[in-house]
């Protein structure tokens, strides 16, 4: 890269195009140089391409984000072993968001402006995504975001590789109603945007079926005392507890539920969660959550050749004791989807990649098969697993077809 560093994005783009035009006008021979696949000054050389990994490896979110980092590194190493992307080896620059949203924004800017990475895999909480979003839009970067989340967002600069809320909720409620005859629901979550939005979608869907929500409740993040709500649940006797409690509260909730004599394996009430992956069960303890149902798109126990290879590779790379949750798998999809899109576009330019996004598919995804929708979310299947004592889920149901992502469900537009 010989061009001087230009920071104003508009100017940069104009110069980029000008350079391209000059090159075309001069009729230079089409050598496979870095400029051909990279007209916007990204950190791409003839044999390497730099990407960014932006997660919390310190602070309170490190618990959750560690798996995503491992998955992204594994995917990058596997892609490199296969010859890289457009013949270029991927080099990653890892930054620590430190569980602090302004730090995420600052590091995102560093990756895009100073390091000129071709793409970024990162973020976990919605708060961190919202913090980096303006940065990605300003500098026209591309973020692959792995977490299942509340929806209500669609940025041209983000690919959402996890489920948005409707994909996680609608099919699972249909399933408990049809298979388990559920009629009454108790909605319980931590008090922030994701559980509240999810429960709003759930309530709407439940009430549309003519069924009843007998309680809806939120506890502050980090709350550790659930005795009162457990008493209320005992009293109202719902058929289903629909739980979206997160973080350390999760452990407290399930331990206290068990201690209060509610045995989830008896399914009276049945517990359906959208927030407990295999990762969380490590902290909760399999014996405390045994019998609960979870609605996710991926479980480590999925029985297909893609997943068997993925689990094997993951354990070889990161150790035998490790468990793989929904978000970890979604993070693994990021580098692979990016590779597929770059190769389809024949370029690392973000604008060119964006044009080819709709329809980019991945047949080797551990969850089976995924495809990018025009709204930048993924078509994928919804699945329900039942927690086992050993901390794994047994898959009891999956939708026949891929579910269409619908980040702006009716009533929210």
């Amino acid at each position, binding site marked *: 890269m010989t061009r001087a560093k230009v920071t104003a994005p508009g100017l940069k783009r104009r110069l980029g195009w000008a350079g391209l035009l000059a090159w075309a006008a001069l009729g230079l021979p089409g050598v496979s140089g870095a400029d051909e696949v990279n007209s916007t000054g990204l950190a791409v050389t003839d044999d390497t391409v730099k990407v960014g990994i932006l997660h919390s*490896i*310190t*602070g*309170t979110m*490190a*618990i959750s984000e*560690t798996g995503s980092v491992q998955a992204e590194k594994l995917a990058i190493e596997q892609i490199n072993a296969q010859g890289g992307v457009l013949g270029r080896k991927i080099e990653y620059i890892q930054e620590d968001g430190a569980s602090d949203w302004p730090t995420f924004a600052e590091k995102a800017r560093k990756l895009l402006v100073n390091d000129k990475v071709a793409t970024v895999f990162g973020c976990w909480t919605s708060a961190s995504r919202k913090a980096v979003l303006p940065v990605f839009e300003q500098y026209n970067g591309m973020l692959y975001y792995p977490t299942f989340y509340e929806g209500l967002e669609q940025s041209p600069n983000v690919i959402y590789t996890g489920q948005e809320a409707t994909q996680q909720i609608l099919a699972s409620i249909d399933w408990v109603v049809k298979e388990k005859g559920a009629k009454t629901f108790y909605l319980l979550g931590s*008090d922030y945007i994701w559980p509240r939005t999810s429960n709003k979608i759930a309530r709407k869907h439940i009430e549309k079926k003519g069924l009843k929500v007998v309680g809806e*409740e*939120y*506890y*502050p993040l*980090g*709350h*550790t*005392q659930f*005795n*009162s*709500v457990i*008493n*209320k649940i*005992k*009293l109202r006797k719902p058929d289903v507890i629909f739980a979206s409690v997160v*973080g*350390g*509260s*999760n*452990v*407290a909730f399930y*331990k*206290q539920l*068990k*201690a*209060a*004599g509610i045995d989830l394996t008896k399914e009276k009430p049945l517990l359906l969660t959208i927030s407990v992956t295999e*990762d*969380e*069960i*490590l*902290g*909760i*303890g*399999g*014996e*405390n959550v045994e019998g609960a149902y979870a609605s996710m798109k991926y479980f480590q126990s999925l029985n297909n050749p893609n997943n068997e290879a993925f689990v094997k590779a993951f354990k070889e790379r990161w150790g035998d004791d490790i468990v793989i949750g929904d978000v970890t798998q979604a993070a693994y999809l990021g580098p692979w989807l990016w590779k597929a899109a770059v190769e389809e576009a024949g370029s690392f330019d973000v604008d060119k990649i964006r044009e080819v996004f709709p329809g980019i598919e991945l047949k080797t995804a551990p969850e089976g098969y995924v495809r990018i929708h025009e709204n930048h979310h993924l078509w994928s299947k919804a699945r329900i697993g039942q927690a086992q004592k050993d901390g794994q889920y047994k898959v009891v149901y999956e939708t026949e077809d891929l579910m269409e992502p619908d980040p702006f469900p009716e009533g929210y537009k």
Partner: protein
Amino acid sequence: MFADYSMPELMSIFAMQGFAGLSLFSIFVLMALGLAIIFGQMGVINMAHGEFMILGAYTTYLTAGLFENVMPGLYGIYFFVAMFLAFIASALLGMLVEWLMIRHLYHRPLDTLLATWGLSLILQQAYRSIFGAREVGVSLPDWMMGSIAVTDLVEIPINGLIVMVVTLVIATLVYLLMFRSGWGRQVRAVVQNRPMAEAVGIDTGKVDRITFALGCGIAGVAGAAFTMIGSTGPTSGQLYIVDTFLVVVFGGAQSLLGTIASAFTISQAQSTMEFFLSGSMAKVLTLLVVVGILMLRPQGLFALKVRR
């Protein structure tokens, strides 16, 4: 509000909620006792209190692993050994911290706040490096996780009972130590008038170190007990620190009795309101009440007359 429920159901609710309130009360007391000693008696704002608790929780985790692998026959009672070890571990760390850091900062309470906050970050990262960023699952013997069914609706969680008993034992021991032993007399003398205590031959440095270690050790026991009800991760201590300070400050920093009274008030208010309102609203109201009372009584519920 009550119209939907039958009379026996109502009785059960009150019984269950009463128990929930009591068990919250004992948790608060257990959390706050260690801090009440350190903050109340020594004037050190120990922001790392939560991390001392989590050291106790990790000690429990390690002890569980040890018993499971080396002497599975005794697994059913490992928890009591773990609590003892948790006390030792946290007290030793507390002693070290007092010697390295705190003793240079007496009479500078705001500096202790910053220094111990830094310590809490260091400890969190240390736990993360040693035990991994993920939460660890502390397995408990089966008999501890069950419940005693009194009627169809009323079930008493065994872990709640255990926390209550532990709290009672610890509180009694602290009472005996502080108010019925020679050492306790020395501590109270140092709190009330340090130069005079020194003048009559009390080694105030030693008293300080042991007092700090005792406070930390109790935090360790609390951490061990909380593995029954909560999570064990590098940052789990943060979940308790706000409530802990709330209880101590509300009770009146220098009074151990005040700490207990304040724990009782806050826990009962919170668990009662939690039943009628949502969890978040209950917390908001509890905090509002506490703020209101502290505005009228800045010294807290109970205040000792101390020469300054």
